[in-house]
């Protein structure tokens, strides 16, 4: 019974967060114009590259697939909610102290709010990006199964990103300001997650490292799954995403534990 009540509560938090996002019409327009510019510029970039290499595939993808890949990764990247700064503020104002008594409910509250935020923004970005891609390069071959597989990679991707930002926010216990760290994190995700270039294109020397890092699961995996789905890739992704989530959960748990100890020893 209490689990049902908790689930309801978290769903409600998510729903409210989603609604408050839709109110920001101006932000939507801003993001649309930005997406248009980026997609156009990268289309030009890829056109030049494809013409120069003389083949119609680069990194295993055709030009339209490359543009759609960017639509997906941008849609995910630009939908990131401001978890790190919220948690940072909780730490500094002391609101965290109250919530840490029940650590699961604190993280859970943030998670549902973040997911509510994220889903709305992602939906908007995806819609706008898709329309633009259709205009610029036309559709790419997709199947219902492929779409299903693509959506299967999203929950873990979003969860991983959330855990990463949550961790950064918790660092407010030790750092004067987490904004620099948060920026470093988002840029690392951008670069090592393969936002602009599918990871297959990266230098061979980097491939082993990239496989091990969790960032690939956040952007590249869903991106590739949309344009070029394969069961093998799905199996790989699930394994890696699962492992990454497990590792992150352990890290978050550990950091929260240390933070709690510090909180109680310092008196909050």
């Amino acid at each position: 019974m209490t689990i049902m009540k908790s689930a309801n509560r978290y769903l409600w938090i998510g729903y409210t967060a989603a609604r408050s996002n839709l109110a920001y019409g101006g932000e939507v327009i801003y993001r649309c114009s930005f997406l248009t510019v980026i997609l156009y510029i990268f289309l030009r970039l890829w056109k030049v590259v494809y013409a120069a290499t003389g083949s119609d595939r680069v990194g295993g993808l055709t030009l339209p697939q490359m543009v759609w890949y960017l639509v997906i990764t941008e849609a995910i990247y630009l939908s990131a909610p401001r978890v790190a700064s919220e948690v940072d503020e909780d730490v500094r104002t002391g609101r965290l102290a109250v919530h840490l008594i029940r650590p699961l409910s604190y993280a859970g509250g943030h998670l549902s709010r973040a997911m509510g935020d994220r889903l709305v923004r992602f939906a908007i970005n995806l819609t706008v990006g898709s329309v633009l891609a259709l205009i610029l390069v036309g559709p790419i071959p997709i199947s219902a199964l492929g779409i299903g597989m693509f959506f299967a990679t999203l929950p873990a991707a979003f969860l991983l990103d959330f855990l990463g930002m949550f961790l950064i926010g918790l660092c407010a216990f030790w750092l004067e300001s987490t904004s620099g760290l948060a920026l470093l994190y988002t840029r690392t995700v951008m670069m090592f997650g393969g936002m602009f270039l599918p990871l297959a294109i990266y230098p061979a020397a980097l491939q082993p490292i990239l496989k091990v890092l969790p960032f690939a699961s956040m952007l590249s995996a869903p991106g590739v799954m949309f344009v070029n789905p394969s069961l093998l890739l799905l199996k790989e992704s699930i394994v890696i995403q699962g492992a990454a989530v497990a590792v992150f959960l352990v890290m978050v748990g550990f950091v929260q534990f240390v933070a709690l100890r510090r909180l109680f020893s310092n008196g909050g």
Partner: protein
Amino acid sequence: MFRLFVDYLRLCAAYLRINMNAQLEYRGAFYTQVAAMFINDGAWVVFWLLFFTRFPVLHGWSLKDVMSLWATTTAGYGIAYGVMGNAHRRLAPAIAQGELDLWMLHPRAVLPHLLLGSTNPSAWGDAAFGYVIYFGFVKPNVQQALMFVVLSIVVAVVFVGFGILTGSLSFYLGNASTLSDQWRDISITFATYPPTLFEGKVKFLLFTVIPAGFISYLPVQSLRSMSIVDLLIAIAGALGVLAAGVGIFYFGLRRYESGNLISMNG
């Protein structure tokens, strides 16, 4: 005429001093913002490094060319908004909220005085980054170094002029901050990509509505060719953008002084 110029230079120095003093009262926050901008710009250097490792040439541009582009753009941006912080996002709201009145009480030309009034702390990160990239990565000889310094100032002039232009929209459209910011962000985005990617109508746009061409094309052209003619063209372009901005500002200021900016929504 010359004495007037020197007088305004001294005013500029005085504002630089007081702006930096104000920033350094909170050193931690200042250095954090500078570092953050380094990280931001650095991410893009990483991107281009990865890109050029895989695709060595882009329409005649090499990694060094793109690095020069980023160096001049960030250095110019940094100098522009480090020295004239109010040209960055502050002009539109200042006009809309009647702050011009306060500036007009001083015995100075409104526009330059107003622009000097604040500094944008993260812009110093951009300026430092630009110079570090150019001298550390591109490794110029003496002539190129001199050309770079001059060009960073030329690009700064474009950024200031464009900031004035977009900010002055408030004279005509009420509080136009969002529109100004968007216009400016789009232009800056275009300015960080090799202009050789674009052709025809878009290229025309890049020298008019979105003055990215004056930032990315002309200056890097001068650096590649090391020709004085190209440099002079770049300078002329920059002065053109500045003149357009200043013209639109003072035209709007005339309307402001007649008090007919006031319009209310019933």
